[in-house]
């Protein structure tokens, strides 16, 4: 049967053909954009591959001279001395101690500030204070280092008479203050994105502001607050200049914050900008230290991720 197609159907076919073409191009564009975005995300993986590659390569050469066991369990770190000892534990304890002091300041203060700014402060106050706090992260870390020795340490010496000029306490306190904006700004963003609905429901039940903030807003924003905490901790572990200047350069296995201690980052900066020959064992030890640092933060980040998954809330 050869019925000529009625005109209506011909028109319909042309129209659908046209919109099919449009849809095809749109799909191509969508795919193209997705590809571009994927490459951007993949870049972060490439960066990690680059960093880990460099660290592993040099560390491999380091471990040819030094046994892994001595590295991980030794308690003396004197790579620049004539009889070098490569036990990383003093540096690890230095890093953990300074990070601990810093977080003891930054996490509580940052969280309280975030809650205050997001739930209590009037708009004008918030828009004034938030940029000022963010300025804290704009001060170069070199300035913070000298501030720690020149102002904070003497001030602390009034309270703790025997405190040496270089100590974990003064470096840690200043580092904590530097990290406050990381914690507070991102947490505050997270809390403010919680829909008003939830707050209004809480108020309707008769809760006051603080009850709402702690019972409703804070748990709802936990994912974002967790991200802020993790960023803050990572920043604390990776901080270099403040501890290099203010915590002293004495690698010592200690749990006492009133003593000087060297951190892994301070050691890395000291050797790479110093007089050691590139390619010597002393120089390669900085890559081994860097690798250790990387693994530590990785472990911590994995833990943080697992915890956040448990508490994630979608609304």
């Amino acid at each position, binding site marked *: 049967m050869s019925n000529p197609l009625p005109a209506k159907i011909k028109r319909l076919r042309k129209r659908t053909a046209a919109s099919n073409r449009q849809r095809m191009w749109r799909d191509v564009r*969508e795919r193209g954009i*997705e590809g*571009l*975005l*994927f490459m*951007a*995300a993949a*870049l*972060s993986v490439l*960066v*990690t591959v680059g*960093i880990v590659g*460099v*660290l592993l390569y040099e560390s491999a050469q380091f471990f040819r001279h030094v046994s892994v066991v001595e590295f991980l369990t030794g308690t003396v770190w004197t790579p620049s001395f004539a009889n070098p000892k490569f036990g990383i534990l003093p540096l690890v304890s230095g890093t953990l101690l300074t990070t601990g002091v810093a977080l003891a300041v930054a996490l509580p*203060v940052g969280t309280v500030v975030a*809650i*205050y*700014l997001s739930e*209590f*402060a009037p708009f004008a106050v918030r828009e004034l204070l938030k940029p000022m*706090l*963010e*300025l*804290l*992260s*704009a*001060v*170069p*870390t070199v300035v913070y280092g*000298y501030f720690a020795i*020149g102002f904070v340490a003497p001030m602390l010496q009034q309270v703790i008479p025997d405190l040496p000029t270089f100590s974990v306490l003064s470096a840690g306190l200043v580092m904590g*203050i530097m990290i406050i904006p*990381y914690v*507070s*700004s991102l947490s505050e*963003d997270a809390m403010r994105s*919680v829909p008003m609905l939830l707050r209004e429901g809480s108020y309707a039940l008769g*809760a006051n502001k603080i009850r709402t903030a702690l019972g409703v807003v804070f748990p709802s924003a936990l*994912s974002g607050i967790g*991200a*802020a905490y*993790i*960023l803050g*901790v*990572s*920043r604390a572990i*990776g*901080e*270099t200049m403040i501890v290099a200047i203010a915590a002293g350069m004495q690698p010592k296995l200690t749990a006492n914050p009133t003593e000087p201690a060297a951190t*892994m980052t301070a050691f*890395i*900066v000291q050797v*790479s*900008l110093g007089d050691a020959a590139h390619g010597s064992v002393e120089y390669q030890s900085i890559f081994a230290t*860097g690798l250790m*640092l*990387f693994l530590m*933060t990785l472990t911590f980040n994995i833990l*943080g*991720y697992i915890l956040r998954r448990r508490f994630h809330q979608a609304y």
Partner: protein
Amino acid sequence: MLDSSRLILRGKRQDAIFNIIGILFTLVGIVTLAILVVDLMIDGSPRLSYQFMTSFPSRRPENAGILSAWVGTLMVISVTLATAVPIGVAAAVYLEEYAPKNWVTTLIEINISNLAGVPSIIYGLMALGLLVYQFKLGRSVLVGGLTLALLVLPIVIVATREAIRSIPGSIREAAYAAGATKWQVIRYHLIPYSMGGIATGTIIAMSRAIGETAPLITIGALAYVPFLPPPPVQSTAPFVNAEWLHSGFTVLPIQMFNWVSRPQAKFHENAAATGLVLIFFTLAINGVAMYLRYRIRKNLKW
């Protein structure tokens, strides 16, 4: 007194107490900042002058200036900004909207927040091996800017992701229901709403980048630069060039670090003045992002 009035009063009292605590804690940070700035001003503001801003470094502290340093900072930061923000936002959008929720994505997520903890000098060492030697880009403004961009990328990504994540699903679904494609939803609905968070991430990221010393020294940023990089605009054709990207440079934190380690006390004054200029710079560059965030927050209602 009825029970409810007592409860309400107690509630109000708690609120008032927390108000005070909140202000006090906020003041901790702000007072510290004020002390720092005042400290710097006492030492450094006598040195702030036109001569200081327009002279090159010198062995004589009275003659030394930060011209090459602040021009270098501006150039490096513009490269960092132009690189880190688009790539960071793009990566965050991909991870949040497109990536399937499998272990690969989890790996990338953990990886990104881990990168924020790598000390900056390791980035410097990696950039030295990769960008300077492998890609043969030399010790230039371009490499400096890229190194810093890699350093601050995790901050931008994390902040953007949190911003996108906090947009209620209802907005997305409404857009899809109206027939929008995925990219249209992202471009016309999600990104505008998350600009506030993106701005926050950019602010913190740029603040960090401006103050970095160690990685730039490692890739070969200089401490004595008696000339300026060639300007990007010129009066002969083709009127715009990219020569400046390949030039040697120095930045304000390096200059400050250099001066503060010298024995002469007058250099320390110079260093304090440089610190002030640095803070002012950060405020200026962040000012735009803060303004943007303010405007967006004002309009945001859900």
